[in-house]
């Protein structure tokens, strides 16, 4: 076993206790270089700007449902995040296998709603009627699928269609950046360093 001397131990534990400033100062040149060359921006991937899978009537109803799942208000909701473009893109590509069952669920949803509301489409109903209706159906596989797609569309990268201008990330409080430096949050700001336990002898190389 390599056991360091007491003075060396003290120094090494101090190293292990590196606070934010020390760690950054020691590593910043390498970190900055690595981050610059990481190449993980999605800036070059333009999001879809047209609906290619859903019909206008389908898209209107899905967007209305998504708008009740994450409503607009003081902060952007699913509509402002253009979640419908994500859903349309997903069902036309990587979730394409789910499109037939999704459409079947949607047809049942639309048919039942129209029958109960004099042929009126869901998207044309008032917020109060939409919310009441969704409370009745929010355990159905179709609603669950729209909910899942809405959340994915809100938070996935904008290149997939939703999270327009990072509206979803802004809602969550997520900043759009590729690398970070400590302190990361409130509680690590004044961390005094790791204090060894009695009887232990922490040491580093």
């Amino acid at each position, binding site marked *: 076993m390599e056991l360091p001397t007491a003075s060396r131990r003290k120094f090494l534990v101090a190293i292990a206790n590196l606070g934010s400033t020390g760690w950054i100062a020691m590593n910043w040149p390498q970190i900055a270089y690595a981050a610059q060359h990481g190449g993980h921006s999605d800036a070059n991937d333009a999001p879809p700007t047209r609906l290619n899978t859903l019909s206008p009537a389908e898209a209107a109803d899905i967007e209305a449902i998504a708008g009740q799942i994450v409503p607009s208000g003081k902060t952007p909701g699913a509509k402002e995040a253009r979640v419908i473009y994500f859903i349309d893109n997903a069902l036309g590509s990587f979730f394409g296998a789910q499109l037939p069952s999704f459409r079947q669920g949607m047809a049942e949803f639309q048919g039942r709603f129209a029958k109960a509301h004099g042929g009126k489409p869901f998207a044309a109903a008032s917020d109060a009627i939409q919310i009441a209706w969704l409370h009745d159906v929010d355990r159905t596989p179709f609603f669950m699928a729209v909910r899942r797609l809405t959340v994915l569309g809100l938070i996935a990268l904008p290149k997939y269609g939703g999270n327009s201008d990072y509206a979803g990330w802004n809602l969550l*409080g997520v900043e759009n950046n590729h690398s970070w430096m400590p302190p990361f949050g409130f509680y690590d700001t004044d961390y005094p360093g790791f204090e060894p336990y009695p009887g232990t002898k922490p040491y580093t190389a």
Partner: protein
Amino acid sequence: MARKTYRTSETVDFIVVGSGAAGGIVARELARAGNSVVVMEQGPRLASHEFEHDELKYRFLSGITNDPATSPQSFRSDPAQKAAPVAGRNPLTYAKVVGGSSSHFNANFWRLHEIDFIERSRLGAIAGADLVDWPITYAELEPYYTKVEWEVGVSGLAGASPFDPPRSKPYPMPPLPVKASGVLFERGARKLGLHPFPAPMAINSVEYKGRSPCIQCGLCGGFACEVEAKGSSVWTVIPEAEATGKCEVRANAYVFRIGMNKAGRATGVHYFDRDKKEQFQKARAVVVCANGSETPRLLLNSATGSFAQGLANSSGAVGKYLMFNKGGSAAARFDKPLNEYKGANVTRIMHDYYDSDPKRGFYGGGGFDARSGGPLTWGQSVPKGTPSWGPGFKEYLESYTYWMTVAGHGTSLAVETNRVDIDPELKDAWGVPAMRVTYKDHPDDIKHAEWQVERAVEIMGAAGASQIVPGEVGNTSGGVHLLGTCRMGNDPRTSVVDKYHRTHDVKNLFLCDGSSMVTSGRGQPTQTIEALAFRAGEFIAKFARANEI
């Protein structure tokens, strides 16, 4: 330097199947010993800049993992049931790129403790399980744990935990900067008289061996590291293996059967190339490091007339004793932002409850850490009592940066009926019989996970959380720690490989990955898999030199 290539007609010294945590190391050790080596990797080889910060792609669309659309698996919880594919996901998940699952792991590098190797002797038999001692001890593996830490690169603080097993050297790098979850976890645990400490991580905290320090992007688990700060074999040992001029890494090479001759010796491997064309590579010996799911599947799919139950399976143990690392957790909300999407995923862990304590009334032990998930994964579910849609759900989404998780990582007992075998009907996109997974938690694993949930709740309570959401403990239906399916042992009647990773039945066939593990450890198996790989590589090279393969 041009990379070495071999023709399929050449008989190379070794084929290593799999380029992950074990395969990369074994290949490097064999190549450095002067052997010609071909590493077969079923996935592509990607440059670091090709990995993206795309949570949808990597966590929901099988971006670099085994895709259920092309590589399906079936699952059942009871051997009496007919297994069926699970909608949208595979039960057993691993990364399918050069670097294997070391590309997308979280990089928690825990050594096993001395007790892990001798629990059967210490605790005795456990009803309904097949708990056995390892054929090696911690002391035998310790030099190789150290080798992992210095060769691959691990950051940490040696001696910080009163429960640390003996070690011959400190970590080569200091710990990563602590994040808010680590501070809160440490605060709560210390209040309870526990001993949290800086997490050992295979992530560079400083520049190491020419690789960058971590840029704290926050996307470790499930993602590959585009700045090469994570100790993935594709950035560490594989380039070193190739630098010998003796090793070829053959990407997009899907090995589906091991070739055998009438003398009972492996002759090479049958594989599909990138064009799905069948090829055969000749070799003097084969080392399978394909992970705890694909290694037994390959052996079982390699059945021949004289090995009707699969290769190296005279014990019947191939595919049996599948283990994960079951654990219990709790999420907690605090009054100020933590911003857990920033920074390496884990910065503090705790091993106070590592050992199994008979006084609890059940078998099980584990460690805890403070961690978080990416926003896309987090947003999929809500705590009990929180609306799943509408203004209340939106308010919950707005609280994302105020949350963290304390996760327990624990033992899973070896149970003979928990296994990987071959589905009688299901085939993959290459027409190769798919794997069937049978798994049901041992009752003690459930009890221990529930116990861990209670401890996680206590720690977050002591830390001052404003809301605590205890995790739900359900039946395990899959995992990423794929362990125990070709267990190591001295007795050919009950184990698949000996303590040097040579199969008991085929002299020139070796296996080394999570499948070799005899018990599950407590949650973070990769460092053990890599230590085993360094040890296996050293011994197999010795056997080759002595013409004993």
